[in-house]
C-alpha cells in the first residue's frame, strides 16, 4: 500500500476504504503499477451519500474524504452500482441505464478504471 495513502485514515469513510483496498491489491501487478505511474488528475467518487477524492500524482494515489476543489472528473452512483462496476459489471451499460453518472474528462476515467476493478489474481 506504499503507493496508496489514505488521508486521515481514522476518519475515512467506507467508500474510501473499499477503493483504497481494491487499488492497493491491484498494485501488486506490474501492469497496474505502470497504469498508476501514468495517471495524473483528481477524480471525485460519490456513492450514495459518501464522497471521496482520488488524487493521482507522481505515481502515487492519495484518497481524501469529501470533494477536492480541482476535479478533472467525477463518478456517481449507488454503492451497489459502484461495487458492481468494481466487480466487472459493464460500466457502459450502467451509464446508459443511468445507474452511474460520469462528468468531466472521460479519458482519465477510462485510464484509471482498471485500477478500480477487482482483479481475481490480485
Amino acid at each position, binding site marked *: 500500500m506504499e503507493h496508496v495513502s489514505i488521508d486521515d485514515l*481514522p476518519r475515512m469513510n*467506507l467508500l474510501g*476504504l473499499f477503493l483504497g483496498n481494491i487499488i492497493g491489491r491491484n498494485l501488486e501487478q506490474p501492469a497496474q503499477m505502470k497504469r498508476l505511474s501514468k495517471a495524473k488528475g483528481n477524480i471525485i467518487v460519490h456513492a450514495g451519500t459518501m464522497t471521496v477524492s482520488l488524487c493521482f500524482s507522481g505515481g502515487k494515489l492519495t484518497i481524501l474524504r469529501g470533494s477536492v476543489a480541482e476535479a478533472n472528473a467525477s463518478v456517481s452512483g449507488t454503492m451497489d452500482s459502484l461495487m458492481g462496476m468494481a466487480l466487472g459489471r459493464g460500466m457502459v451499460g450502467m451509464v446508459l441505464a443511468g445507474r452511474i453518472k460520469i462528468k468531466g474528462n472521460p479519458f482519465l476515467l477510462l485510464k484509471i478504471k482498471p485500477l478500480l476493478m477487482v482483479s481475481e489474481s490480485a
Partner: protein
Amino acid sequence: MNRDALKQRFEEILGAEHVISQPPDLEPYTTDYTEEDPRPPALVTRPATVEQVQGLMAAAREAGVSLTPRVSGSNVGGLALAPEGGVVVDLSRMNRILKVETDDMYALIEPGVTWEQLKAHLLEQKIPLRMGYPLSPPDTSIVANCLLDGLGNLSMRYGSMGDWIGGLEAVLPDGEVIRTGAPALSDLWFGRGPLPDLTGLLVSWQGTTGIVTKMAFQLWPEPPHRQRLFILVYDRNIAFRAMRDLCRLQICDDVGGLSWTTGKMLFGVQKPAERDPGEPEFFLYLDLTGQNPRELELRLELLNNYLESLEAEGHQLEKPLDIKTLVRLNPEFNKLADFPTRLEFLVDHPGGGLSWVGTYGPLSRFEAYGDAGVEIMARYGYPPTMVSRPMKGGHFGVMRFISLFDKQDDQERRAVRQMNEELVDAGVKLGFIPYKTPPWVVDRIQAQLNPAFVETMRRVRRAIDPDGVMAPRCWAFKEK
C-alpha cells in the same frame, strides 16, 4: 494448610506436571481480555477426570482454599480470575467428545471441548447437523459459553446458549456427582426438562455451585442451501426496526447488527475516529437457508419485498450484498463468511484490551439504549462499537458496547471501567440485564435486584457450598 502442602496434596491427585505453581507459568491465569486488575492465583490445577475434580474439591474444602474454574482463558469481566490465595481449575484437559447422537441431535462433551474441535468432528464424521457459534474465538469452550448463557448465530431461532443444554453432569462442592435434566433418569440427554430444572442451578451461576464435567450440547439440522447477506443501513434505528420486523417475518436463521466501526476495523482501521455523516451507520447481517433452491429464493423474495417497503417509506439502505461478493471486494470479509471465526481486530490488536458491556433486553428499547450508549462512548472518546441481535424469535435481544484499549495503560483501564459503569447503569435503567455478569456489575445492580431473589441465591449457595469453596468472587452479594 500452607501453599507447599496444598501443592503437594494437589500433585498427589493430579501428578506434579498438572499443578502449576511458578510465577511465569501462572502469568496466563492472572488477567483476562478486560480492564480487570491482574490477579495471580496461588496455584493452577489441571484435572483430566471426574474423579480428579472430586479429589480437588475434597482437598480444597479440607485446606479452606477456593477453586475458580476456567477453560481457554478468553474470559471477560474477571469471572475466571481467582481471588487472592485461590486456586484456578483449568479444565482444558477434559476435552473429549464422548458421543454424538445424530438421531436425537446432540453432542455429549466435556468442558474443554472447543468450537473448532466439535466442528471438525462433525465434518470428519460427516454428521449432517449444524451447531450455533458465538463470535468468540474458535478455541474457546462450548460448555463455558453455554453455562454463562452466551449467545450465537442460532440464538435468533433458539435463544441463548443456556437453552441449548440437553442435560449436565457436575461435581458439586461436597464431591457428589449430579446429573441434571433428562440424564437424571434417561440414558439419552435430550433436554433440561421435564423434571424440575436443576440444570438452572449451574447456568449463569458462574461456577459458584459446582464444576460441570459433561454436557449435552444441542445440534440442529443443516439446511443444504444457505446465503449470508449484509445490508448497509444509514440509520441505526432503522436497523433496529428491521431486526424486529425480520424476526416476525420468520424468514431468516439469523439477523444481527454491527455498527460502522466494525466495518472499518476489517479494513485495518484500529481506532475509527468518527463517522462520515454520509456513510452507513449499521450493517445488518442475515443468514437465510432452505431445503431446496426454491425455498431459499422465496425467502430472499420476502426479504427483498420487506427492504423495498422500507425504501418506499423513504429510508436509505443499500441492496443486500452476498458475503461472497464482499470477500471479493475485500478478502478480510472472509472472517465473517464462516464460523467460528477469530476477529483479530478485536482480540489481537496492539493494546490487547477488549472490554464490553453485554446485556439482554427488550427489542422495543434498542433505540433508547443505542442512543444512550453512543452518547456515553462519545463522551469518553471511544467509537460506538455495537453488536446486537434479536434472540428467541424476537422475545428479547442482545446489545453489546465494545471498547478496545491498551491494557498496560492504567489510566485508560480506569476510564474504560468508568465508561462501562455508565453503560451498565443506562441499560439497567431501560430494563436491560447484564449477562456473564462481572463481579463489579453485581456490586452495582445488587440494590436494584429483587431482595428475595438475592436472598434465595444466597440460601441456595449456602446449601450447596457451605464452605464457600467455589468461585467466591462471583455473585458475591454484599451482606446487608
